[in-house]
């Protein structure tokens, strides 16, 4: 091997070192910090909604104990029942530790989801409380939780809702923890919940 080739190899290796350093800096330091700034705001806002058990729901409601927040609607044949089904599975498992996770199911469709309708709908899943309110207050909540929701017109004045389908976890101080993606497997979800709930 001549000296030139060796110099080239050394250069290439140093380039790799540089790239690895940059990657480490980004993934370990900068990216988490940026994410932290964005996620610290999740759930914070001046929305004032009502729960299906008759109390009010505001940003302060997230404090006191850990909770999960999910946005959905009752005219939803698939994602919402599936997620409520998943939540029931989590609750069954947490029940082994005599624990129940507080879950808020916030309607993206308050025009059709009255407290009565929504209350019946969520009553089947343990620990789940429905949340609804006026369109203006729900819109404030959508913004506060950074949730996408859009009305999609169908026929005869009927419509469906496109909406963000993950479940958001909040710690006992009302601070955003992380999301649980749609249909995430229980074996991945439960350790997250146990950690959140100090079980």
């Amino acid at each position, binding site marked *: 091997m001549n000296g030139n080739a060796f110099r080239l190899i050394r250069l290439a290796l140093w380039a790799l070192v540089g790239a*690895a350093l940059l990657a480490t800096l980004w993934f370990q330091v900068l990216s988490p910090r940026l994410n932290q700034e964005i996620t610290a705001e999740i759930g914070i806002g001046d929305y004032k909604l009502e729960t299906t058990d008759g109390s009010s729901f505001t940003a302060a409601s997230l404090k006191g104990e850990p909770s999960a927040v999910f946005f959905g609607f009752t005219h939803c044949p698939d994602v919402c*029942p599936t997620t409520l089904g998943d939540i029931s599975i989590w609750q069954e498992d947490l029940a082994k530790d005599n624990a129940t996770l507080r879950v808020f199911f916030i309607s993206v469709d308050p025009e059709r989801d009255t407290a009565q309708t929504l209350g019946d709908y969520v009553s089947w899943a343990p620990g789940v409380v429905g949340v609804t309110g006026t369109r203006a207050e729900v819109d404030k909540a959508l913004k506060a939780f950074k949730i996408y929701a859009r009305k999609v017109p169908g026929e005869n004045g009927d419509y469906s809702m496109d909406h963000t389908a993950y479940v958001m976890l909040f710690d006992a101080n009302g601070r955003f923890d992380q999301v649980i993606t749609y249909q995430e497997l229980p074996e991945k979800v439960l350790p997250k919940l146990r950690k959140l709930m100090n079980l």
Partner: protein
Amino acid sequence: MKLTPILTVALLGLAAAPALAEQAGHSPDHTMPAHEAASVTQGDLTLTGGFTRATLPGAPVAGGFVTITNAGNADDVLTGGQATFAAEVQVHEMAMEGDVMKMRHLPDGLPIPAGSSIDLKPGSFHLMFMGLKQPLTEGETVTVDLTFEKAGTVTLPLAVMGPGAKSADHSAH
């Protein structure tokens, strides 16, 4: 000290690997177990594993799921159907775009191409029962008349599974 850069690269690589792996993310993939539920054959079409889910209290809609196999040489189209327990039966497509759930009515129906099998399943194509006239109770069986362009009307029994059921397989959640 010619080895130093190589070692540094190796060590940094090791340090960064977990972070990179985490960033790559994981999307859970559910593969449904194949099951031998009641099947209905009419003409070239065979419909298997039909199920719906027990409705949540007061739920105004429900989804229906089935696998449709077209063994013939001609394409067919599922255009809709009728059920005594619902005002309307539509064919819908559900898709996740990132974390956003999007649902669309397929007004032109769902093509069932010749020689292929189409799954109507949670998280994908489904029958949408609109304007439910009665709650659907786990353990019951309801029937729906599906309308196909070529095969005509096919009467399909749907087992009513638990509210979170992902297939007609009793052993699955």
